């Protein structure tokens, strides 16, 4: 099943009965490929965040996950509130452009955690944190993707981060020109990315912000790609420089239009900032968060129902006007 682990999967029957290649429903992909206790990375820096996959993980009540993401964002605030996570590995913990991630903070700040336990009457477990800088997280995925024991970087000098996280270590240059910090490889059990398009074998193309999706995918044992659009192989092969993730390392392809909402997809829809603003007051009340999860996740059977519930009018406001890339010519040789 694992792609990047060197056990390629192309050519295996579709993940879901009657679907081509590796195409699967979100339900089947998450059920088969995400296991309790896994290290899961849902990557995508502001752009292409797979809320659809996160919600399905909540819906299937996966437990004890270690969640890795440079920016946990609302999706991990929701997954943590749903009790799916044991630990976060991250570099910036906030609601971008709005404020904090309050469900996470309630499980990290002792005073807030006591209050949460009091009000819920449950022995809510504190959330473990393992933190880096952005470049540190990118370097960890890169080391994982490259099968290297460490990646050097010029960060962390004279800061408290190496004390807070003993996995950030120093190495002396064998060329006698000083020391640099290094971080260890990050190797997710499963990496989940959203993309504009892929073919049925999982050959995936992305434009706009690329974040660290390529590195996170190559670093993982299993990869789920969620796309706005399933395209013919010929569309991918017409522009091979645009391919970010090869089907070789992809285990399932899920077709889920609007699957990144309320985040965005370059060229397809804008970030639904109204929701990022609305989440701030919701997330300040555990009760409101749980009510939101019931209404928008548990009481819906999947993304299609979520999209229908959002309504066409709201979605229509998120469509950008066209800005075409133009074409280039690869030339036919022989």
């Amino acid at each position: 099943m694992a792609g990047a682990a060197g056990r390629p999967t192309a050519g295996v029957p579709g993940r879901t009965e009657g679907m081509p290649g590796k195409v699967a429903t979100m339900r089947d992909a998450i059920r088969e490929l995400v296991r309790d206790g896994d290290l899961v990375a849902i990557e995508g820096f502001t752009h292409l965040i797979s809320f659809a996959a996160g919600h399905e993980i909540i819906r299937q009540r996966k437990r004890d996950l270690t969640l890795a993401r440079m920016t946990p964002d609302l999706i991990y605030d929701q997954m943590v509130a749903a009790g799916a996570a044991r630990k976060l590995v991250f570099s910036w913990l906030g609601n971008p452009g709005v404020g904090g991630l309050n469900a996470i903070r309630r499980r990290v700040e002792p005073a807030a955690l006591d209050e949460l336990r009091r009000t819920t009457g449950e022995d809510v477990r504190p959330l473990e944190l393992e933190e880096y800088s952005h470049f540190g997280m990118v370097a960890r995925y890169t080391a994982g993707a490259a099968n290297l024991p460490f990646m050097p970087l010029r960060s962390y000098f004279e800061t408290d981060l190496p004390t807070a996280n003993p996995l950030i270590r120093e190495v002396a240059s064998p060329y006698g020109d000083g020391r640099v910090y290094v971080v260890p490889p990050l190797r997710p059990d499963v990496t989940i990315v959203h993309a504009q398009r892929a073919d049925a074998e999982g050959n995936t193309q992305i434009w706009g912000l690329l974040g660290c999706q390529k590195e996170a995918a190559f670093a993982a044992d299993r990869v789920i790609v969620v796309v706005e659009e399933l395209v013919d192989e010929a569309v991918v092969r017409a522009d091979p420089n645009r391919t970010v993730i090869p089907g070789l390392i992809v285990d399932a392809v899920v077709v889920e239009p609007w699957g990144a909402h309320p985040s965005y997809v370059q060229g397809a829809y804008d970030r639904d900032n109204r929701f990022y603003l609305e989440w701030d007051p919701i997330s300040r009340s555990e009760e409101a968060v749980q009510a939101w999860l019931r209404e928008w996740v548990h009481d819906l059977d999947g993304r299609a129902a979520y999209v229908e519930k959002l309504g066409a009018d709201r979605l229509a406001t998120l469509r950008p006007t066209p800005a075409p890339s133009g074409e280039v010519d690869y030339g036919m040789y022989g």
Partner: protein
Amino acid sequence: MTDVGFSRNEMMIVAAARELAGQRVCFVGVGLPNIAVNLAKRTVAPELELVYEAGVFGARPARLPLSIGDPTIVTGATAVTSMFELFAFYLQRGLIDVGFLGAAQIDRFGNINTTVIGDYAAPRTRLPGSGGACEIAINARKVFVIMRQSARSFVERIDFRTSPGNLGGAEHAERIRREGGWLGRGPSVVVTDLGIWHFDESGEMRLDSLHPDATLDEVRTTIGWEPRISERLADTPAPTAEELRLIREELDPAGVYTR
């Protein structure tokens, strides 16, 4: 809004934008730096190249980016790269002239905390953490800071050092940077809602300009140490009508950053 016709946040953003005059390549941090840099691009620094850690060089945002990963920073940009390339080949390589940061806590030497208030293991307040700030502070040629002044933010001792400034002072910082081969020369200015601070030869911040309608008393009551005040303290020129128009009509019509 105060009766002077503009808010202190507007004055802070305008003063920060003006500091970018003559700068060439700016790494844009989340929050207040984002609006200050976008104002500078429309006023004193039209040639300014905006770099976003999300992987964008030469952004031409058609609107104020809602976040530092907004799609408007991509469309029409010069280059979009992986974040590995952005941090390794642009920032760490020394191509960034100004890293523009915000902060939750800062000390007299410009050392910055954006990680926790209180004890790291059991924080009173958990803040976002480093993001790219740690590497920006080390690798950008110089660092600009924009933040509101308060006794809780301008402190004698920060609770956690997320991003290094002038460490224990200029001498110490210069030795560390030289020995470590840092490309960054550290903090150069801190713009607040009350004034503009630069760093003197000892590496400590000094108030060089006071904003209209701000007083030295306020400055002293919103800072955790006895501040150095320039003998030639200037008055920050008030925002121009055009600066205010850009902020209010183009950059922040909803007043997210400026009310």
